[in-house]
């Protein structure tokens, strides 16, 4: 009697405890969900404010809301400075993309097999990731001044941007190269394809998602890069440089419009990249 009562009691208690634990877990999960949602909101809120303010019929970039207008976008598209800076940004980003994609892809292919010193090459490729942008910018600036070469968009800026973008291209392509199944290439060669044919018809298509990812990432990194350009452009302006110059003046909604355009350029490209890489 005594024993069975004790057993039931223990059972009840443990059941209640389990019940309570499940409830606590559910509570924790709900809390985690709420917390994450809030954080996502905070992550996006300031950018959303910018977008809203860029449509405001006001002369300063502030609330209250005075009505909807696209005037600031019209002003932006009429602005010659914006056009030049946009062209500069685009050209530098395209060149950075082309060169760093080629260099990074070649390097990832070369690293397919371990060789003497491959560890060092790997460390060198990751070095830009741990170098503060400011130091990277300053040091390339010194390199150019030391050899009396004028800093320019397609000289020093391009050089610095490629250093910055290379590790990203290398890493995405390298992941693909490591996952390559050599038997596929061997099969192609057994069937009579030569090395060139095998490379273009088997190897390259297999690593293509990585290469495309690398292209997009290097383009975006260059398009948005500020601090390296700041030291290396020698007065020539890219979009981030133009935006920077505007920030120390009275902020008009035109600045918000410029920021919105930059924001959606990045988002658009990113979504295309996601779509392409998934295929």
């Amino acid at each position: 009697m005594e024993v069975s009562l004790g057993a039931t009691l223990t059972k009840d208690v443990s059941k209640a405890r389990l019940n309570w634990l499940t409830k606590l877990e559910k509570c924790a999960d709900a809390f985690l969900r709420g917390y994450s949602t809030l954080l996502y909101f905070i992550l996006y809120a300031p950018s959303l404010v910018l977008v809203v303010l860029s449509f405001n019929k006001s002369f300063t970039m502030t609330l209250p809301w005075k009505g909807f207008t696209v005037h600031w976008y019209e002003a932006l598209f009429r602005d010659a400075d914006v056009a030049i800076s946009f062209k500069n940004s685009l050209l530098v980003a395209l060149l950075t993309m082309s060169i760093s994609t080629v260099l990074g892809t070649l390097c990832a292919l070369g690293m397919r097999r371990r060789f003497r010193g491959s560890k060092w090459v790997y460390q060198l490729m990751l070095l830009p990731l741990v170098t503060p942008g400011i130091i990277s910018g300053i040091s390339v600036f010194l390199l150019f001044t030391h050899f009396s070469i004028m800093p320019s968009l397609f000289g020093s800026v391009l050089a610095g941007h490629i250093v910055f973008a290379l590790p990203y291209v290398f890493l995405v392509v390298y992941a693909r190269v490591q996952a390559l199944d050599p038997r596929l290439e061997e099969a192609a060669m057994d069937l009579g394809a030569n090395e060139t044919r095998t490379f273009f018809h088997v190897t390259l298509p297999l690593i293509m998602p990585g290469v495309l990812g690398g292209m997009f990432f290097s383009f975006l990194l260059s398009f948005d890069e500020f601090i390296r350009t700041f030291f290396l452009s020698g007065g020539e302006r890219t979009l981030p440089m133009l935006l920077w110059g505007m920030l120390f003046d009275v902020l008009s909604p035109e600045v918000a419009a410029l920021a919105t355009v930059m924001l959606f350029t990045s988002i658009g490209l990113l979504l295309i990249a996601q779509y392409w890489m998934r295929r």
Partner: protein
Amino acid sequence: MLNQKRIRHPMSYLTWLVTPACVWLLIFLVLPMLIVLVYSLWESTITGIHPMWGLQNYKRFFEGTLYVGLLARSLSTAIFVTILTILIGYPVAYFVARKAGRHKTIYLILVLVPFWTSYLLRNFAWMPVLGTQGVLNKLLVGLGILAQPSPVFLYSKLAVYIGFVHTLLPYLIVPVYVSIEALDPRLIEAAKDLGASKIRALLHITVPLSMPGIISGSIIVFVNVAGAYVTPKLLGGSSGIMYGNTLADQFSATYDLPFGSALSLILMVFVVLGIGLLNRFASVKGLYGG
């Protein structure tokens, strides 16, 4: 017995393909660092830069409290922001990796978007929010919490911290997410079968095994804060100056290249030290977790 190593793959000459990338990095990353080292040992006078070898620039750095203090402040801010980012970001990464269910891809893309959008833009976005005429003030006055708009939010230490954490969070969340995602769920099942509660499994399995992600995220955050220029300049005001701003001034305002080079090199040494410490921490934790 045949020596396996002697059999060369037909495409082993492909190894040479690493050369162009390596040469580029040697010319535009390693060589410039060496030039920084050389310049830091030279001297700048009114008549220009002279190759007078010596430690005068380093002496100037360590003489007063000005530069040492700036460095200490930047490094302590970097450590503080890194810890704060881990504490704030880890639960989100965990949520996306384990609890987001079928919306996982959307949550992931939503954290990747800020990852790939302009750092400058995401800093500047706080200006119309925190300013005296900003949205936050309008909101607080509207709700009756404040009697009149307060100028304390923008150009303050708080604004700098907000800017850092906000812009750097994605760089932490993404690698942590990847490492939680890569974790074998059977390990957690095993822990639970052995009687561990969910919390215990989280603290003893998930967190230690996601250490590599935490460390690589922390390195990015630490490096960015230690050398920060944009965030303190935009959100910190005149009192929020950090090491990166003083460093940049040597190249854009006072034009003292040798002293600026010394400042760069000192920062680089401390950044490398910081990364080394973080990595050491990772390997210790790895032993513990594995």
